[in-house]
C-alpha cells in the first residue's frame, strides 16, 4: 500500500515508522525543513520538505497513485483541506484526518471526511483518569473515540461498595459489561452486589464515562 502522511509531528513520525516497518511504501510531507533534517537520517528519502496543502507538492509526491492519505498536522483546517484535495483532485480512495480540537470533529464529517481520529480527546481521557483516580482505566476507545471501554476498581471507600447495581445511579449512555471478582467473570444484573476488590468493565460514551467513574470509584481527593 502507498500511504502519504502529511505532518511530521510525533504522530506523523511514529505512524511513518510503523508503516515502513510493516512493509508499506510511505512518503512523509512536512513543511518545516529543520524537522525534516532531524528525521532524515532515519527516514532518508521518505521524508520530504513541502506544504502538503499545495497541489503541486501532492502531485510531485504521487498523490494520484496513493491508496491512502493521512493528515496529521496540528491545524484542523489544513487537515481538512489536505483530505478534500486528495479526495476531489486526486481521487485517493481513503483519507484519514487527525482532529486537534475535538469541537471541530463535526465539521470534518460535515465536509466529507468520515475517517477522523480525535487524538486530543483520547489522550485527555487517558491522562484525566490517571490524574483523577488511579483506580479506573481507559482500556480502549472505539468508533473514533465516541465510545470507550473502561475498567473501574471498587475499593472499600467506593460509594458503590456493598450496593446492588440497581441502586447505583448510572448514566443512560453506559452499560456494565462484566464484573471481575477473584479472577472470575460475572455477568452483572440489577441485584448483583458490588464488593471491594471487584473490577467493573463498562462501555460508555466519553461523557457518561466520567459519571460512571464517579459513581463507582473512590471519591477524588482534592
Amino acid at each position, binding site marked *: 500500500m502507498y500511504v502519504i502522511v502529511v505532518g511530521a509531528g510525533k504522530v506523523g513520525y511514529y505512524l511513518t515508522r510503523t508503516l515502513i516497518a510493516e512493509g508499506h511504501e510511505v512518503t512523509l510531507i512536512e513543511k518545516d525543513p529543520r524537522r525534516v533534517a532531524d528525521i532524515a537520517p532515519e527516514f532518508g528519502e521518505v521524508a520530504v520538505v513541502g506544504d502538503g496543502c499545495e*497541489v503541486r507538492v501532492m502531485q510531485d509526491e504521487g498523490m494520484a497513485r496513493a491508496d491512502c492519505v493521512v493528515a496529521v498536522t496540528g491545524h*484542523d483546517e489544513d487537515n481538512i483541506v489536505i483530505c478534500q484535495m486528495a479526495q476531489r483532485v486526486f481521487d485517493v480512495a481513503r483519507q484519514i484526518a487527525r482532529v486537534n480540537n475535538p469541537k471541530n470533529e463535526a465539521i470534518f464529517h460535515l465536509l466529507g471526511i468520515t475517517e477522523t481520529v480525535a487524538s486530543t480527546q483520547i489522550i485527555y481521557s487517558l491522562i484525566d483518569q490517571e490524574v483523577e483516580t488511579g483506580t479506573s482505566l481507559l482500556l480502549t476507545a472505539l468508533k473514533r473515540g465516541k465510545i470507550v471501554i473502561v475498567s473501574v476498581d471498587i475499593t472499600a471507600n467506593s460509594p458503590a461498595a456493598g450496593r446492588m447495581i440497581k441502586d447505583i445511579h448510572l448514566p443512560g449512555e453506559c452499560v456494565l459489561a462484566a464484573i471481575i471478582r477473584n479472577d472470575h467473570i460475572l455477568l452483572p444484573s440489577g441485584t448483583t452486589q458490588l464488593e471491594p476488590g471487584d473490577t467493573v468493565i463498562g462501555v460508555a460514551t466519553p461523557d457518561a464515562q466520567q459519571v460512571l467513574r464517579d459513581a463507582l470509584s473512590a471519591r477524588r481527593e482534592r
Partner: protein
Amino acid sequence: MRVVILGCGRVGSTLAAILTREGHHVCVIDRDQEAFDKAAQRLGPDFTQETVRGVGIDEDALRQAGIEQADAFISVTSGDNTNIVAAQVAQEHFHVPKVLARVYDSIRAAAYREVGVATICTTTITAGIFHDRVLDRPLRSLQEYLDTAAGDSDRPPKG
C-alpha cells in the same frame, strides 16, 4: 443586507467600512482584538456595527456573529485553508445564500471553485492587472482573470 466577514485585516476591515457606509449590517470576526483596534484607528470607529472575537471555523463564534440570519459570508483571513473551510461551513452547515472566500493559491482556488465553493484568487487578479498595465493592454473582466488561472498548465491531471 446582513453580512458576516471573517478576518479583520486590510481587506476585511475596508470591505466592512464600505458596506456599513452603504447601510448594510456588518459583523466582523477576528481572533485578535488588536485587529479591531487597528481597523478602528485606520478607518474610524464606525467601520463596522459589530465585532466578535473568535476563530472562523468555530460554530459558536459564527452564531454569535449572526451567521444564521446572514445574507452573505465572506472569509478573508490570511490563511487559505481557514477561508476555504469557513466558507464551506457557512455554505453547507448554515446555508448562507452568498458565500465568498479569498484564496491566494490559484490552484487551490480553482479546485474549490470547481466543486461549488466561490473562491476569489487575488493573486491571479492582481498579477493579471499588473500584467495588462505593464503591456498597456485594456483591463479585462474579473472572470477573465480568474479563468486565466483555472485554464493554465498548472492544473493537475484528474485521477
